[in-house]
């Protein structure tokens, strides 16, 4: 096996064939790119320290699709991977920021409207991350729905497409996950 990272197109093809290891590799490969892009978003004075996942993910897709010659069929895979990547990125970013500054552990994730807002605007990233990990362990699909919704900013319809379930299911999963996360966060605090 070559030591140089496989180009994205290869990773996409492998992930499309359902090889879980490639999905991990894809997330890793996306990490640096998304971080670079998120970095420029974060440095943008106007938005302060807020992130707009929808914008970022869309931008990333356009960018990648062009630079790596990906076709539309890869978009679903990309979105799923990007959501995971993006969540990691946010957590890392928050940790880093917390390490730099004393106290004030809250990172605000800004979404354009209430519909996209995670119901815990002021929660600490650590607590949120812990709750999300708990959700992932117990309810993997529901966790993925949450990731796609809040970390890739996808509308319900698109999530349903990505996961191959009905919109109704996505809506149910979201309701459930929100309640579940809320309960876990309440326990933690």
């Amino acid at each position: 096996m070559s030591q140089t990272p496989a180009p994205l197109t290869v990773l996409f093809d492998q992930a499309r064939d359902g090889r879980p290891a490639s999905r991990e590799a894809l997330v890793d490969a996306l990490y640096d790119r998304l971080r670079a892009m998120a970095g420029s978003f974060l440095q943008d004075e106007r938005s302060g320290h807020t992130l707009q996942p929808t914008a970022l993910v869309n931008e990333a897709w356009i960018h990648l699709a062009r630079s790596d010659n990906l076709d539309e069929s890869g978009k679903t895979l990309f979105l799923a991977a990007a959501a995971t990547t993006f969540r990691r990125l946010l957590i890392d970013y928050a940790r880093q920021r917390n390490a730099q500054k004393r106290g004030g552990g809250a990172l605000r994730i800004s979404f354009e409207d209430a519909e996209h807002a995670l119901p815990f605007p002021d929660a600490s990233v650590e607590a949120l991350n812990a709750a999300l990990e708990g959700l992932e362990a117990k309810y993997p699909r529901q966790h993925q729905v949450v990731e796609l919704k809040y970390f890739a900013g996808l509308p319900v319809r698109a999530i349903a497409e990505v996961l191959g379930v009905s919109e109704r299911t996505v809506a149910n999963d979201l309701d459930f996950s929100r309640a579940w996360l809320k309960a876990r966060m309440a326990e933690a605090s």
Partner: protein
Amino acid sequence: MPDHDGDQIYRFFHRARDQAPAEREAWLRRQGLSEAVVVEVLQLLAGAARESVLRPVETGALPPRVGGGLGVPPIPEKIGPYRVISKLGEGGLGVVYLAERREPMVQRVALKVVKPGSDSAAALARFDQERQALAIMAHPNIATILDGGQTEGGSPYFVMEYVQGAPITRYCDEKRLTIRERLELFMSVCDAVQHAHHKGVIHRDLKPSNILVTEVDRRPVAKVIDFGIAKAMGPGLGSQTMYTEAGLFVGTPEYMSPEQAGVGAFDVDTRADVYSLGVVLYELLVGVLPFDSQSLRAEGIAGLQKIIRESDAPRPSTRLRMAPADRVTLIAECRREAPDHLRSELGRELEWIPLMAIRKDRNERYASARELAEDIGNYLEGRPLIAGPESAAYRARKFLRRHKAGVIASSIVLLSILLGIGATVRSLLIRAADLDRTRQALRASAELIDALSDETADDAKFENSLNKAAALIESGENWPDLDSAADIAMGCAHAYNNRGRHPDALRLAKRGLELRQRLYGDDHVVTLDARQNVALYMFLAGRMNESLEVLRKLLADDIRVLGEDEDRTLNCRQTLIGCLIGLNRIEEADKEVQALLAAGQRRGPAARDYLVDAQLLRCEILVRQHKLAEAIALADRTIAEEELANGPNSRAALGARRVRGVMALEARDYAQAVAILIPTLEAMNEAFSARDPYVILCTAVSIDSLAQNGQLEEAVKLAERQLRRLRQQLGVQSPAIQELAKRLRELLGDKPPTPEQARLLSGIS
């Protein structure tokens, strides 16, 4: 907790939510679940209940479900006095049944049971109030509301005349109705809506599935159903159509007016129905909706509201061009038309009718359904329409045209300065129809807007943004909306031109022309406009003979398409005259000027500006023919007439006085030139900005006159002052600034510049 529990928790969380809140715990305990699961579910439910922002309507009391499962509720046997026969359909609001009443006579009815909401009692009360109004509606194209009541479960229901028909859009396509037949059928729908409005009833939910078409004696008859129901259900329930528990939009936002799209926006009047009618008409004509359903829903509620409230609907002919070819063929076939023919029929005038009906601002829509019907009648009978092009775009183009006219009327040397004055702001207002693709474009255009609005910005930055936008446009299909792309290409052309980069301007203008040809065809007025721009930039790039050829052909086309006296034709002729004078082909120019004068006189006061311009061009020709006295007489007469018509400080009067000053200069009467030009320039300075072409042109000749008259110091001062003002508005590469700087340098000669002068001249080569 074992996995099995997790599964149960998930399932029973949702099932318990269908129970009334007060009964949930008891219900859960009856399900034979472990205590841990019950506690967990209750805890989750408590969390979910607090979260009311996302769920405006907490479903407190759903109808009891037989079997307690997630399945479909069974069809009731009887509702009130009606025997239910079958289910006709189900929507976001409720279920519609086909039912039958035997007393006093056998009658088949459509019975709509509304899903219960928080205030079904209030809904019924409102329905009772409405009933009176509904009862007095009697129109052959309205399905009557017969009755209303409350089911045993407490849900309100409405009883309507049963109409066995297909939604109007489907009917028209299946029967392949022609455009004319569709319009005629649609007019009867407008009539029905007008009738209801007259009785004080607003529909509020007009859409194809509420406009059913049946056949009577093999002729199509439209029937509007559900009149007054949305209102009867009132705000409490009305808003529920839009949002489900998960915040999904399940109503029919495609047909909803912007004023209805806001949450809690209930200031709705009859013009909301006009809007919905407009969308239906759009669909009947074009075969697609103004906003693609998928993109409408792709961005969530906020995005959807944004599109409904802010995005302008594309013109039907444009929309059709954007659809895939096979789709268009099919759409055309359903209308018994060839695709090209359909496009041109829509593009000619017809498309303005739906566009006017779906204006965002209801004050700009048709005032009533009747007016909409009347305008359709106007179209069918070939009378002029009430509807017309969108005012903003129209104004912007007019603005551009006016300025271009000004250029030509002025001396050719400074021609290039004027272009680009019309800015391009409108062209940069992009419809956010497809966010994915639009994002990149928006970013480029945002940079471009920044660059354009600050023309003094340093060149590298300006160039960078401009080049980026230009490259996007030129690379082909990257702009989501070709119409905007064409406008932006034109805007970039103007901007390049402002920087004195004529070949680049020409390249972009050609690209804009190409796009417009594709979108609008060869004979559309915006395409003709674009050709004129191409000719101008060609001229400025030094390809004068080529430009002349283009203009001659354009003029012939203008006359053929629009006629001899249309604004566009006059404009083109002016440009042609400018070009001829520039080539020193004075006799040909004179012939064209005569034609322009004749047209100006035929047009009368409405086209006074053109007449004035024509007379001034005539002056210029007389000067070149060495008939100075005659030129001066004509200029004096022009000034006197214009001042009489529009006062001494009208734009045309000031422009004419400038020309008169130039003549004094030409006649070497420098004192008189100064006496005319300096007050004229002051008046212009007051009325227009420093970069206005009139000001720029007048400044140049004023400085020349002062210098010739021996008032060197004043000339320098004037040059300094105007240069200072201009540098606040334009970049150093602008021909206007370079021209002025050249004059200042000439005036200074060998004299070392003062620090202030050096500052003013800095950066200018």
